[in-house]
């Protein structure tokens, strides 16, 4: 179990995260919040790139910063800005990362071939990465994160910049990878999370707002989301969420306590909760 105990991260007077308490076991956790909420800060602390100002992060009762390399050999990390050496091929790059992860050369060679197959990059294994698309680079990023078959997989905005096809491929891949490990996936793209995460972690005001299954989070807005034609005046207290096109014209989704005139109740989705929760943060 990965235990985050009352963790705060401050940069001078600015508080990036405040008193975060989480217990993570095997499964997929979607870390959902707008930009600047502290998702990357939390993930970087879990990857030992940042040190908490206060609080502790423990793996099976032991502080991860005391464990040092014993902890890091159990994690796989895909950073938000995944850099690589442009003149490397995927095989060269993965061999280097394998060396850094302490994987013996012979085992690394086999593992690299397995992973290239998993991410459908075998035929591109000897081409220079500078010629790859964003999606191909991300696939290599996933492969490097998986090299050591980690117990904890930390993925920071892994689908940012990917087209829908690549994002779907990524979600399918993650389904396969999620067995028997903790997967922590940060994103501000709600659809990436609602289909694959068994728990959604919401941050608000740099604090933990919720850590629940998507269904339970959606129930917080149960019977309070309505659709009505775009342009219709909103009743007092109603919160505009989004708009969409239908066969009958454009409609707006709103959240309010009572049904507005002409409004149709619709099931609340995770995106509705996200937009409602973060409405004051300029989402």
């Amino acid at each position, binding site marked *: 179990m990965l235990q985050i105990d009352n963790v705060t991260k401050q940069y001078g007077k600015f508080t990036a995260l405040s008193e975060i308490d989480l217990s993570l076991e095997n499964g997929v956790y979607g870390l959902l919040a707008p930009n600047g909420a502290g998702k990357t800060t939390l993930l970087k602390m879990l990857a030992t*790139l940042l040190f908490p100002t206060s609080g502790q992060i423990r793996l099976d009762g032991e502080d991860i910063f005391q464990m040092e390399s014993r902890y890091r050999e159990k994690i796989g990390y895909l950073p938000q800005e995944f850099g690589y050496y442009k003149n490397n091929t995927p095989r060269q790059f993965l061999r280097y990362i394998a*060396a850094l992860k*302490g994987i013996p*050369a012979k085992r690394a060679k086999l593992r690299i071939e397995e992973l290239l197959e998993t991410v459908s990059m075998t035929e591109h294994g000897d081409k220079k990465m500078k010629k790859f698309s964003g999606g191909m680079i991300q696939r290599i990023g996933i492969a490097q994160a998986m090299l050591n078959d980690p117990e904890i997989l930390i993925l920071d905005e892994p689908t940012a910049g990917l087209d829908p096809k690549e994002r779907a491929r990524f979600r399918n891949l993650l389904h396969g990878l999620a067995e028997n490990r903790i997967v922590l996936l940060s994103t501000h793209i709600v659809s990436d999370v609602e289909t694959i995460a068994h728990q959604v972690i919401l941050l608000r005001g740099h604090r933990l707002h919720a850590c629940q299954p998507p269904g339970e989070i959606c129930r917080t807005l149960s019977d309070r989301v309505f659709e009505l034609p775009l342009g219709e005046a909103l009743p007092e207290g109603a919160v505009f969420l989004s708009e969409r096109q239908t066969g009958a014209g454009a409609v707006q989704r709103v959240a309010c306590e009572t049904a507005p005139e002409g409004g149709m109740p619709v099931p609340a989705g995770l995106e509705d909760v996200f937009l409602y929760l973060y409405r004051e943060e300029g989402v």
Partner: protein
Amino acid sequence: MRCLGWELKKIFSMPMLWIFLAGCILVNGWMAGSGVSQEERERLVYRQTVQEKNGGQMVPDFWESLAKEPPSALREQLLEETAGAENTLEDLNTAELARLYLGLYQPGGGLVGLLEKKYAALQDAVDALGGEGAALSVYAARDTDRQFQRLYDGLHAALTESAFLALLLGIYTMGMERLCRTESLLLSAKRGRKTALEKGAAAWIAAAGSYLLFVGFFLAVYGIFWEGTFFWNANVASQFHTVQEAVFTKPFLTWGSFTLGEYFAAQMGLSLGLLLVFSLMGSAAGLWLKNSYIAFLAVFAFLFAQFAAPMLLSDAGCWNGYIAATFFPAVLWHTQPLWFTDGGISTVIPWQESWGICLNLVLWAGIFLLAYRRFRRKDVA
């Protein structure tokens, strides 16, 4: 070790490095082959051949053997240059040298006492050299100073180029992951922040390898253009080997007895040590300062200050500061021509270059370890 191999691979995959190496090799090759005089080359070949046959010491046997050589202008010239040679180190009074320097530079503070002590200690070394007849080494006779200077210039160029490389690579290897945006990946892997140690080692290994390449290539080209006239077995304290000071000329006085080959080997060994100092300096700056460009500017400003310090301090009459400044790495590099010698006013203790480099190794290893320790607890953006 695997990680070290990868770090070296990353360094040597940089096209700019190969351009730099090629440029240095071309410059050094030009230095080795330039200024070749057919006349001087013939003289040097003759002098080396004669010594191989008849020995390299100016003793009665040497002149007897030389007289038996076929008559030639070269033989006559060598006879003339070596005629009446005496063991000039046998009666040399080093206290006189101390008086000359003290009179010329008029230092103050602790420097006066240190210089007197140094030259008193030198007397023992000179007596030993006198005892073994080092001054009677023929070497290249009156071509000695020129020959030595040519060889030395190549050595100094190689050290200068490699020192620059050691500093740059030390800074660059520490910052390259930020430039490539791979820092998060590397530091979150099992090896983590310890990769800084492999990076530091790789920077030095690359610089040391380049130094050996530069020296090797220089000697190879020199050997071709000067037909192998190295005189490796000659004693560097030969009476024909002199040091030109501002207003006087003095013998090349070494703390121990060195053949030219031994002297060069000692210079190369110590140069590798100085390269490690520069490498540690660059690595410490690269680790400490977030921005590689700022680290580069800071290091070179620091080196320039080191280089200027002895002159500024002596002009200001701050002689105790001057003493400390003679141990700076940039000053040790600058005084390479004086390594293993009395060193004039540029050194304050016997074997200063050796002690200085050892001291700097300890100091800069300590600074690097402090920077590394700080890095291990530093947030990675």
